[in-house]
């Protein structure tokens, strides 16, 4: 139940003053009488009585007074027209004053108040609308509130004949239309001023006479009305009233228009009255008497009477009847007694009533006044008889005649209230599809009443006038209080959209701002603080639906711009330039923009619009605000620099190549130098003083529109500098005048930097002028890694300090420039030795004493030191000692002493040559780090050189070897050298064999000469053990020992194999290998051996290879083929490795077996077992464990033809069998058996021989020993005999002196038999 009814529901009293009274008040500087009386409303402490005579105390009792003429005029005006005028009038008022309102409101922090739900604070615009609507006092056809309940006829005693004046006024009936309720109380007021012609007694007599003539409702009001008028007394503000229709005003000019302007107001907006204290009391007494003695009793009487009528209709028959009517929907007039006019109106349903009043008017003599029931309800409401009022209103509502609009005010809050509200609005709105001004005003009035009756309106019309907009805004205001902020935001937005159409900008802006704020506010989430951390989200991250905010911001920006607040407009446009992140990013950051938003931004508003608006407004701002205008608070919301891809680029970096590769070169150097000294190698990546380096800035445009950035540059700080000023002064940074980035484009922008003194520089920011308008800068810092060291760091997110791109600038004291002299494309033939010249220049300021070259382990090169080989006569063979180590090659020092004779002085340069051996076919790169230093300097510096080249295949070499048939040599080694078809004509200049054990000689002894493309040459070589061989046994022992360690799983010590002496035999002609060639051969052998070992022993760690395997197997034979292409001036050599001659004896078998039988440690990892067994297998199959039958039997003179005269005797042919032990180490026992008499075998068609003499030979062969057996073949007839079916049993072992007489321990046994037929033909040469 409401505490107070809206004032618009208060009883309405019309006043008809006489002309003399009007003049009197005017002369006393007083407003017209209705206003004076209105100042006394509401009355305090009024008691009314209900129909059941229960007293109802009213703390305040509102009254409304107005001029009768004005009301009459208002009734005559077309309702629709007046409604439209009302709306325009309210709009004008709002428009005039809203700027001030918004200002004041924001000053008192209105937005904050909204959220705090301070109900006492009201928005001024809503108050304005409310007052205007409440101030409506013209009677309406729909409802009876404004229908006057009383008419006060007022005269003054200043009139020459007050009685006559009264008579005239009383004779004038109120000129209301027929639909105005004619049931009024008539009251007479006589004002008796002090200066009246009548004395007090005469006035009393007049009063009595009037009372006698016009009844008791009469009052004599004596007033002093001093002149000059007393000081103004503040009184309650008059509700604003719609100015009178200008046309009708001209007809009755005598009545002053009752507009707010006519009321004298204080500057503070207060309403005042210039009345004396005495007069005020007198008037108050009159008003109280009028209400208490006349108006209220009269209204109570009416209520009682009408209630009688009402209750009678509620009795059973009529109720039955009326329900029947309701049931059958007939239009039978209700029998409800109405006063005055007929009751045909009751048949009109509410649905059509508001719109069809005029049609009803045409039916009867005129539109009927409001039905009695309604008046009853209204009176009961006014009098506070709520029980009756609710009852009657309900009945009216059930009859479909309204009531819904009042019931919400009277009922206690319940769901039904909302239904009433919506029904009331439906009635208003459905009257005509396009809402008329009447309907709007009506709805507004309802809304105002409901709002005052404490229920927020739940209503949105589609009218576009400011009042409804303000209503919406108020709805929003109330929604905020209800915490429905989303709805509030929408309503604010709607309100703003409407207001904007009527051009009321300050308020529009305010509403938009509110909407903006509300959309920005995310709902409170009662979640654990660690939730955000675990989800990886930012607490303050803006929730979804971000398609909405840009629209609001854009509208706000435009409004600000049009209203001249360009600064704020610029700020709004700036925030709109958000750009869109990639979908993946969106997912990670949880939806800054999802797909539909992206689509939306393209469809409705693009960055292009925003950018253009920004450009225009900012340009305007710049033009208008003069030179010294502060841009510091304008920050671009987007960033263009991709910090994570931005890089520093130094001059040396242009060499290219894999960074890991350079890293490994530097590691190689460090490892090498560790044993030599403590000096460290300064890593590359330093720029030099006065030498440019570059910052490759990666710029990405996130907007889908082209942008231009002017004066793009970077800001550099020195590491020691604390200040945040501009770039340090000793650094020159390139500035790019203009950069245009296309929509979503990414570009890499190199910016050159040159420092004038050594320092550590941090590249902190990129700065540019956005669109050549807004100077802006972006940090180039990357967030440091997350710290996890302490529990606190683990529990919360703590990051290391930001990481900036760092550039080290060093003094150019030690600087070297190294380049290849020839820079063209390099194509080499396989095996070619290419002389390359390097140009070295000291560009630093200090002399350089030492220069080293660090190349990759596979690169074969030699520094030519300018030595010329001594021209000694070539020996028969060459001997040189090899370190026999697989270790990587050490960095090579450039012999500055030899080449220059002095350190490399600053500015000096020299060239030196390098021979490169192209050992691998394909595209190759020679990457060398050149390490240098000044003598005794504690640091080394390095630079990088790289050369790419292509290697084409030239020769293919195949080798085959086996035991030689020739008794002079042990093994034969056949080489097949074939030229590649595409190659040029090649000359094979030399074929050299290298072996620690074998001396090889060509059996051809001739020059091979030229090889045409595709041609092949065959070169047979014979190998004999070299009697001066040394180091082989040690090497063997070393390898076996190391392999045993590997197999046993013990730690391998890193000792290197003993040196080995190599013998070189030149097969084609005698010559001397230059020392560089020995180096190349060593490198080649190392590369080949390392590749082979890496392929075979895959599971052994690489760094252990040099400690396990010697470079050369003691029995290995390497062949080097030297070639020349005279036509192209090329020469080179190809190394063929992999040949191992001589029988092995499986020396590792014992160890392997031991390893296999070793108690297997159970290991949970199958991989470990597999790895172990694969290591074992690899060693078992390796060349160090080869095992063959060392003894070979050959038949000398096989295929011989023997002539014999069989006529004389049978033939005895001695056959020579050669038996040779190919083992270099072990003796062998042999047993050779010949079959006594062999029957002809079916296999061969040759005859089986029979032997005479000794058939079994036994003996022992020492290592490499060979002997001849000479059995005798007995041939009885001429035939071809095959020497088949012999049997050779071999026992390989050791002679162990201690084991007894024989002292023999057998290791392996072999049985051999004939493999070839070895025929001997006997021809009969008998004489016959």
């Amino acid at each position, binding site marked *: 139940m409401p505490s107070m009814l809206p004032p618009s529901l208060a009883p309405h009293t019309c006043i008809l003053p006489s002309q003399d009274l009007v003049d009197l008040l005017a002369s006393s500087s007083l407003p017209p009488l209705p206003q004076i009386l209105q100042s006394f409303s509401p009355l305090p402490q009024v008691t009314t009585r209900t129909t059941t005579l229960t007293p109802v105390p009213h703390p305040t009792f509102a009254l409304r007074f107005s001029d009768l003429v004005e009301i009459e005029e208002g009734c005559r005006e077309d309702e629709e027209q007046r409604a439209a005028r009302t709306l325009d009038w309210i709009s004008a008022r709002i428009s005039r004053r809203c700027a001030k309102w918004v200002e004041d409101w924001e000053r008192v922090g209105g937005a904050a108040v909204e959220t705090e739900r301070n109900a006492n604070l009201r928005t001024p615009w809503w108050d304005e609308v409310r007052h205007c609507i409440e101030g409506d006092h013209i009677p309406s056809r729909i409802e009876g509130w404004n229908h006057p309940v009383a008419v006060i006829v007022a005269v003054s005693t200043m009139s020459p004949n007050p009685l006559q004046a009264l008579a005239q006024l009383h004779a004038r009936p109120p000129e209301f239309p027929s639909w105005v309720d004619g049931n009024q109380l008539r009251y007479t007021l006589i004002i008796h001023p002090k200066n009246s012609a009548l004395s007090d007694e005469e006035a009393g007599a007049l009063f009595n006479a009037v009372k006698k003539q016009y009844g008791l409702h009469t009052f004599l009001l004596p007033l002093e009305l001093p002149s000059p008028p007393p000081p103004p007394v503040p009184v309650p503000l008059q509700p604003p009233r719609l100015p009178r229709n200008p046309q009708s005003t001209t007809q009755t000019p005598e009545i002053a228009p009752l507009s707010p302007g006519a009321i004298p107001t204080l500057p503070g907006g207060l309403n005042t009255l210039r009345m004396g204290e005495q007069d005020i009391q007198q008037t108050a007494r009159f008003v109280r008497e009028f209400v208490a003695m006349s108006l209220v009793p009269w209204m109570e009487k009416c209520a009682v009477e009408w209630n009688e009528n009402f209750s009678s209709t509620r009795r059973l028959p009529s109720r039955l009847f009326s329900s029947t009517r309701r049931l059958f929907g007939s239009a039978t007039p209700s029998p409800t007694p109405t006063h005055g006019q007929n009751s045909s109106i009751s048949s009109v349903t509410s649905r059509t009533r508001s719109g069809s009043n005029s049609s009803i008017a045409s039916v009867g003599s005129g539109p009927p006044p409001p039905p009695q029931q309604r008046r009853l309800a209204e009176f009961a409401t006014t009098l506070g008889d709520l029980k009756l009022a609710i009852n009657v209103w309900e009945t009216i509502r059930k009859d479909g005649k309204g009531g819904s609009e009042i019931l919400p005010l009277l009922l206690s809050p319940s769901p039904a209230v909302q239904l009433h509200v919506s029904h009331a609005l439906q009635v208003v709105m459905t009257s005509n599809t396009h809402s008329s001004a009447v309907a709007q005003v009506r709805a507004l009035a309802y809304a105002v009443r409901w709002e005052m009756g404490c229920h927020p309106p739940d209503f949105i019309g589609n009218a576009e006038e400011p009042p409804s907009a303000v209503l919406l805004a108020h709805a929003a205001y109330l929604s905020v209080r209800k915490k429905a902020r989303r709805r509030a935001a929408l309503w604010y937005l709607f309100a703003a959209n409407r207001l904007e159409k009527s051009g009321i900008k300050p308020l529009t802006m305010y509403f938009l701002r509110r909407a903006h704020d509300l959309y920005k506010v995310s709902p409170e989430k009662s979640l654990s603080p660690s939730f955000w951390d675990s989800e990886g989200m930012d607490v303050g991250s803006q929730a979804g639906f971000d*398609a909405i905010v840009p629209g609001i911001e854009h509208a706000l920006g435009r409004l600000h711009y049009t209203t001249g607040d360009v600064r704020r407009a610029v700020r709004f446009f700036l925030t709109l330039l958000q750009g869109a992140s990639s979908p993946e990013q969106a997912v990670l950051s949880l939806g800054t923009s999802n797909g*539909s938003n992206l689509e939306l931004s393209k469809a409705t508003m693009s960055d292009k619009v925003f950018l253009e608006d920004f450009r225009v407004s900012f340009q305007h701002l710049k033009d208008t605000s003069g030179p010294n205008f502060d841009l510091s608070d304008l920050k671009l919301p987007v960033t263009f620099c991709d910090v994570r891809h931005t890089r520093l680029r130094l001059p040396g970096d242009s060499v290219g190549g894999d960074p890991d590769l350079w890293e490994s070169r530097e590691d190689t150097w460090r490892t090498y130098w560790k044993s030599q000294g403590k000096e460290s190698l300064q890593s590359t990546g330093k720029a030099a003083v006065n030498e440019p380096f570059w910052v490759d800035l990666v710029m990405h445009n996130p907007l889908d529109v082209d942008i231009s950035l002017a004066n793009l540059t970077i800001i550099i700080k020195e590491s020691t500098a604390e200040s945040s000023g501009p770039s340090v002064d000793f650094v020159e940074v390139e500035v790019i005048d203009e950069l245009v980035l296309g929509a979503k484009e990414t570009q890499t922008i190199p910016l050159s930097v040159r420092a004038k003194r050594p320092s550590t520089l941090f590249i902190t920011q990129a700065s540019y002028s956005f669109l050549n308008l807004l100077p802006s800068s972006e940090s180039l810092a990357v967030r440091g890694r997350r710290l996890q060291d302490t529990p606190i760091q683990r529990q919360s997110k703590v990051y290391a300090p930001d990481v900036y791109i760092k550039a080290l600038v060093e003094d150019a004291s030690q600087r070297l420039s190294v380049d290849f002299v020839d820079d063209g494309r390099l194509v080499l033939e396989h095996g070619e030795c290419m002389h390359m010249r390097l140009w070295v220049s000291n560009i630093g300021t200090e002399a350089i004493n030492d220069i080293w070259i660090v190349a990759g382990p596979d690169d074969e090169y030699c520094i030519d030191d300018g030595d010329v080989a001594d021209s000694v006569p070539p020996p028969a063979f060459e001997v040189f000692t090899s370190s026999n180590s697989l270790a990587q090659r050490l960095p090579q020092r450039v012999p500055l002493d030899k080449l220059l004779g002095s350190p490399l002085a600053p500015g000096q340069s020299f060239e030196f040559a390098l021979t490169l051996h192209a050992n691998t076919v394909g595209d190759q790169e020679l990457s060398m780090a050149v390490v240098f230093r000044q003598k005794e300097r504690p640091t080394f510096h390095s630079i990088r050189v790289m050369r790419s080249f292509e290697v084409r295949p030239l020769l293919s070499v195949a080798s085959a070897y086996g035991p030689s048939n020739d008794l002079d040599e042990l093994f034969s080694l056949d080489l097949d050298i074939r030229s590649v078809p595409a190659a040029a004509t090649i000359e094979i200049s030399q074929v050299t064999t290298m072996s620690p054990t074998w001396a090889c000689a060509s059996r051809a002894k001739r020059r091979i000469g030229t090889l045409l493309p595709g041609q092949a040459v065959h070169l047979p070589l014979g190998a004999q053990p070299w009697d001066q061989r040394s180091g082989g046994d040690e090497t063997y022992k070393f390898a076996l020992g190391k392999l045993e360690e590997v197999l046993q799983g013990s730690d391998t010590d890193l000792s290197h194999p003993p040196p080995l002496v190599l013998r070189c035999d030149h097969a084609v002609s005698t010559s001397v290998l230059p020392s560089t060639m020995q180096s190349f051969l060593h490198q080649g052998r190392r590369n080949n051996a390392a590749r082979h070992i890496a392929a075979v022993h895959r599971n052994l760690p690489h760094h252990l290879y040099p400690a396990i395997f010697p470079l050369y197997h003691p029995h290995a034979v390497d062949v080097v083929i030297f070639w020349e292409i005279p036509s192209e001036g090329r020469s080179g050599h190809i190394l063929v490795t992999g040949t191992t001659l001589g029988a092995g004896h499986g020396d590792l078998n014992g160890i392997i077996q031991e390893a296999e039988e070793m108690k297997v440690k159970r290991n949970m990892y199958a991989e470990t077992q597999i790895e172990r067994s694969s290591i074992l297998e690899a060693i078992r199959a390796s060349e160090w464990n080869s095992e063959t039958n060392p003894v070979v039997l050959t038949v000398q003179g096989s295929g011989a033809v023997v002539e014999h005269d069989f006529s004389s005797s049978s033939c005895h042919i001695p056959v020579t069998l050669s038996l040779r032990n190919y083992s270099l180490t072990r003796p062998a026992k042999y047993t050779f058996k010949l079959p006594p008499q062999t029957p002809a075998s079916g296999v061969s068609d040759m005859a089986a021989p029979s032997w005479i003499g000794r058939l079994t030979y036994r003996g022992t062969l020492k290592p490499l020993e060979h002997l001849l057996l000479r059995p005798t073949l007995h041939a009885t007839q001429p035939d071809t005999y095959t020497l088949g079916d012999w049997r050779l049993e071999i026992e390989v072992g050791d002679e162990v002196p201690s084991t007894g007489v024989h002292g023999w321990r057998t290791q392996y046994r072999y049985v051999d038999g004939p493999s070839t037929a070895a025929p001997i033909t006997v021809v009969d040469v008998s004489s016959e």
Partner: protein
Amino acid sequence: MPAQLGLAAVAFVSPQNYPILIRALSSPSDDLLKYHYLAHTSLDVIDERIAAAPKNAESYLGFLYAMEEVAVYGYVTPLKVKIVVAFALTDAVIRDADVIAVFKAFHLAYYRSVANPFLKLHVPLDTPSEHGTLLLAGSAQWRGFRRRVDEVARAAGALPVVNA
């Protein structure tokens, strides 16, 4: 499914109140932004309804509010994805059963689209929540969801049948 329901738009809103997909279905397509507003505003009403409803209330929330020629209905899946459908306000009676059928169809469309395993293709495996992938279902690069929604709309008579 009943024809001519006057389906104007559908909005899928994630449990964290991010829009997954907002699609205008009436042809010609209206201002999409309006439906963003509507969906956003309905969250208030949905919140109120959910707060008021008992725990085991139905998914279908019924009529939420009417505004600017559309009636807005709401539906909450068991996993709190909110589906908001706007019907054009006509004189024809909209039956709850029809609306529920439409909602169920949309729910199924959403469910099928989110089940797409390739949604997670470019999402790091250690992304803490599934939420992001839900949002991805509505993004422009995955057309399946839109297609399914359009199919439902077509069946409900909002969109013209393509091959007809």
